[in-house]
């Protein structure tokens, strides 16, 4: 179900206007739909907007998206609060989204979640003290046969083991 918006964290962080190549992409996406149906671009454009804003959607960013698509701000809030991929508060540099649905649990998802919590020093739904990782649990990501698994940005990390989690966290820390 939809999640609520926390007004206290609505400070501006995005660089508005977006860079030209992002604006070009927004225009390109709108060509996928007939005249007057540019609202259809909203979901893909929110993904782009989130990337421009350190992984989350602030109110000013959503208002800006509304302007870009020539729709009202409330239409954007409605959508952003409905879908689970849009983050409505700041997130860490990396968002680890571990699947916790039944089939993954049969192959150790719950243990993997506990292990990650221990390793990054925060609970599900929180951001690690060093602001490096946000840990989320998500529902079935279509990788049930490759469990346990997590989503990291645009990619999946599958068949998680303690060693694999250690390597992943170390890799990300060293890249940051």
């Amino acid at each position, binding site marked *: 179900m939809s999640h609520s918006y926390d007004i206290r964290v609505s400070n501006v962080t995005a660089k508005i206007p977006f860079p030209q190549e992002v604006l070009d992409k927004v225009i390109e996406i709108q060509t996928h739909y007939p005249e007057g*149906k540019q609202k259809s671009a*909203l979901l893909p454009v929110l*993904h782009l907007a989130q990337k421009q804003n350190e992984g989350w959607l602030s109110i000013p960013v959503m208002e800006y998206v509304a302007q870009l698509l020539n729709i009202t701000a409330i239409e954007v809030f*409605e959508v952003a609060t409905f*879908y689970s991929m849009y983050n409505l508060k700041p997130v860490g540099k990396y968002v680890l989204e571990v699947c916790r*649905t*039944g089939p993954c649990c049969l*192959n150790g998802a719950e243990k993997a979640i506990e292990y990650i919590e221990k390793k990054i020093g925060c609970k599900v739904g929180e951001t690690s003290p060093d602001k490096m990782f946000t840990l989320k649990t998500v529902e079935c990501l279509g990788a*049930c046969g490759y469990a346990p698994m997590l989503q990291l940005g*645009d990619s999946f990390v599958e068949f998680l083991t303690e060693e694999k989690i250690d390597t992943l966290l170390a890799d990300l820390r060293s890249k940051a």
Partner: protein
Amino acid sequence: MASKKLLLEHIDVPGINTYDVYRQKGGYSSVEKALKSMTPETIVEEVKKSGLRGRGGAGFPAGMKWSFLAKPDGVPRHLLCNADESEPGTFKDRYLMEKIPHLLIEGMIVSSFALGANVSYIYIRGEYMWVSFILERAIAEAKANGFLGKNILGSGYDLELYVQVGGGAYICGEETALIESLEGKRGNPRMKPPFPAVKGLWQRPTVVNNVETIAAVVWILNNSGDDYAKIGVGKSTGTKLISASGNIKRQGVYEIDLGLPVDEFLNSDEYCGGMANGKRLKAVVPGGSSVPILPAELFYKTANGDARLMSYESLADGGFATGSMLGSGGFVVYDEDACIVRNTWNFTRFYNHESCGQCSPCREGTGWMLKVLHKLEHGQGSIQDIDLLWDIQRRIEGNTICPLGDAAAWPVASAIRHFREEFEWHVKNPKLCMERNYGLLESTKKFELVS
């Protein structure tokens, strides 16, 4: 006997995800055949003859759905491919799109031609972002080679194909929610009628089909509907992709002839390879989290004692009292250590999380079930709670706008129906149930477990 590979024949060919290799292997020949020697009507006829049923879960005959599409003058029509794939236990569409994306593109071209659609969309769940990039590249290649765009192969037929990413919501797999989402709105399912075939995307006539359904059309056109209908059993024609997961030796996506015995699918090395770690089978969810769970003894044999087959009819044999459904082919296997109460709680949490919130029976009912199941799972429940749970699920089923309500009710109903003793054991052993599963010892007394 080995199953035929109509979809996955070339899946392991190196480079099959590229246009060149796909084309060398005979790819896009159905487009040539359809555009040069067939009419939309004859294609629909072939698909009808094939008996192909929707692979997204409901199993509605594809050809019949196509023939319902309204064709008012001057109103554009659309084909939408449902690549939202979010039913727990299901990962076959992703496998197909990731490995052999051109098969879906080819299917979209011939199917769009059959329906008279000039702009079609593949709606893919946002979490499959990287798969969307694979599809976009394949579309660009197909376009560069003249299979998309204006005047395809000089036939006068134009088609633009776009990939649309979702935002993370199981409900957008429901076809009218998918349409709402593609219109840039919340994924709230619409009341039917009107059906999408009459008023769908932007109020235009629309067909929504699953990835696998559309991919199957390619083989049907390359061969014939009659040949397709020869594979399988009865009204379960053709092959089906099964996503197998859980406590088995070989998890993965398998293409099977419909009608394969479940015993062979679970236990032969060609498919699941049997149970992992020498454990015994406790239960199977054969068609994705929404379909009823079957205890081992009802899984292998129907109530009449017939061997159960992987087909729409055989898996449903006995109705919900003793049967289940083929659904999306999300085949989840539970061994003796799995806790049915915990699994039911987990699935209910899923449906509660994914309910769009429009209808009270679904929104409130899934929340109540979740609370009661949470108590039971954590050793705080009573026997009356089990009856209450039964009562709540009964009031959801059939009383909602879309079938998500039913999908939330069925796993709960079937778990209580077949595993009531395990729920009662949780009530009677509040401490013990937090430490170990009923399945380890107790279930061996009650159920005849099959190895």
